[in-house]
């Protein structure tokens, strides 16, 4: 018993373990239901290619939600940064054009994030309102200056930028998967091992505590939203460089999927606690669902419902585990199962008695 408990506590102390479990279960399920697709490496390579852009967004959003705030404007930043990169690449001559494009795209993201931060921290607009407005505004601006047209940047394939961000390492592994993993590692250290991350957690926990303990709550929030803008711009860059084209409504549809990935990962919606590791695997869960469900051969009308079910299952598992610990959850589950057993035993007795008499 004691040994088992210590095993539980060891398992419980590993961040994001339940999410990894859900991901493995999901893949196991797909291997059984769609063996022709899921026993070959190709599908996994394609996940490593499609998931990173909004995995990157989810990583940034994890920090924002940990601070007790929300950002709804990042899909617009995905479009804006893609536009800025594509425009500079197309219109600026010279070999360094893609690099300039990257710098300006990240700067555009920083600008959006910074204005969000000013509105939220200095003016006091609730983040859900400020960023909702920003999402409309910046999408509008992007479509306006792009004249609603897509920009084909096929030539980017021959540049070093393309190889660096979306090339195939050893000919198979998409580089963007490594960029996303590297960013996840960096943000994990920032959230869990840096004073900026600690400030984020205390602000999300209770901004008054943060303030009386000497944290500059306003400045931290502005920095956080600026960082979110830069990260969202980076996600937009990965997307645009990968598909070699900017289209004005790129990023649309990312919002809810990204939020689902963050919450599946165990980040608290109330703030104060966030899991970068959880978001990392949560994003792969969400990213695998659509292809996976289609591959099982059920009609594609099932996809949305199946996604909903799997998302809610993942979140319920996280709620059960509560504090991020498995121990309490196993105790709770035992509590649920045991009375049920006692009941069924009692029911068995009552049916047995008439038989015997």
């Amino acid at each position: 018993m004691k040994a088992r408990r210590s095993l539980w506590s060891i398992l419980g102390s590993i961040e994001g373990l339940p999410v990894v479990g859900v991901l493995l279960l999901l893949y196991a399920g797909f291997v059984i239901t769609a063996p022709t697709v899921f026993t070959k490496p190709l599908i996994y390579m394609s996940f490593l290619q499609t998931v990173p852009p909004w995995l990157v967004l989810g990583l940034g959003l994890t920090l924002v939600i940990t601070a007790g705030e929300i950002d709804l404007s990042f899909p617009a930043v995905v479009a804006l940064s893609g536009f800025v990169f594509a425009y500079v690449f197309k219109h600026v001559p010279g070999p360094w054009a893609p690099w300039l494009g990257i710098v300006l795209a990240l700067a555009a993201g920083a600008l959006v994030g910074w204005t969000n931060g000013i509105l939220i921290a200095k003016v006091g607009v609730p983040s859900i309102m400020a960023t909702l407005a920003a999402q409309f505004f910046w999408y509008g601006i992007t479509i306006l200056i792009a004249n609603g047209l897509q920009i084909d940047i096929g030539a980017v394939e021959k540049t070093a930028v393309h190889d660096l961000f979306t090339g195939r390492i050893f000919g198979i592994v998409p580089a963007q998967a490594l960029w996303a993993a590297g960013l996840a590692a960096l943000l994990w250290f920032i959230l869990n091992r840096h004073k900026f991350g600690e400030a984020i957690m205390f602000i999300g926990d209770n901004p008054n505590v943060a303030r009386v303990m000497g944290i500059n709550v306003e400045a931290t929030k502005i920095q956080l939203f600026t960082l979110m803008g830069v990260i969202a711009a980076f996600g937009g860059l990965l997307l645009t460089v990968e598909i070699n084209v900017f289209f004005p409504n790129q990023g649309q549809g990312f919002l809810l999927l990204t939020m689902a990935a963050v919450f599946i990962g165990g980040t608290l919606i109330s703030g104060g606690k966030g899991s970068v590791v959880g978001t990392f695997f949560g994003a792969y869960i969400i990213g695998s669902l659509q292809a996976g469900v289609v591959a099982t051969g059920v009609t594609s009308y099932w996809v949305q419902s199946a996604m909903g079910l799997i998302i809610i299952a993942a979140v319920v598992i996280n709620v059960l585990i509560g504090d991020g610990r498995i121990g309490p959850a196993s105790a709770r589950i035992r509590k649920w199962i045991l009375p049920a057993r006692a009941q069924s035993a009692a029911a068995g007795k009552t049916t047995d008695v008439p038989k015997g008499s």
Partner: protein
Amino acid sequence: MTSTRSAPPKNASTEKRSQTAATPNALEMIHIEKYFGLVCALKDINLKVGKNEIVGLIGDNGAGKSTMVKILTGVFPPTSGSLCIAGRGVDLGSYNVKHAHALGIETVYQDKSLGEKQPLWRNFFIGREICYPLGFLNVKKEKEIASEIMVKTIGFRGAGITVDSNVSKLSGGERQGVAIGRAMHFEAELIILDEPTVALSLKEVRKVLNFVHKIKAAGKACIYISHNLADVYEISDRFVIMDRGRIVADKPKREFSLKSLDDFLLEYAHGRMDEEAS
């Protein structure tokens, strides 16, 4: 218990001044005023706290106690007036929480001293992290010191609470103990306790009062704010009574028994009611 002496000096603060001329006061507030827009929250506040003195600050809701605490601790500046800490004037223009901490002023709030969902070790060092270069936390060192504070200063033993425990696992008294222990670790010269015993059971209140006795024994000063007269009376050397943004009485303990302090406050409140009625 009743240390009431006959014919006490009329003005206790003048006596205090001459007594502590050699060692500077822990704190001196001179003509502090605070307006929120047109609303006057504090009017001509003059308050001194001696080096090893425990001052009980008493006043009704809205008397201005919390506003005063926030000015002392650098959460916001006063509209006018000046502030001396340990005998030295403070530049109120740049005064903030970090300065207050650096000058040895620590505050323990009723409910906003600790981050509930965070482990204890983070709560000990929040705002004053021990860092490697680039601002990365030295977690090992922070945990070591935190567990030392818990055993030596606060006196937590066993009970399944470690530096990795979340604050939400602690009882109310234990939380105040952690906050007071943190203040003492950072060598606070003046610890301000803002209603530390509200919503605590009697046993937990006892624990908190014992922590306050430790503050006195360690030679530090303290401002203790509470509604509970029995608590304030037990630990204070001097009582400061506030009403509607003013200090209306400032008297040493020997002028009052618990009963006479209670009567004084009641009479004062009645007098105010009469005044309002007329």
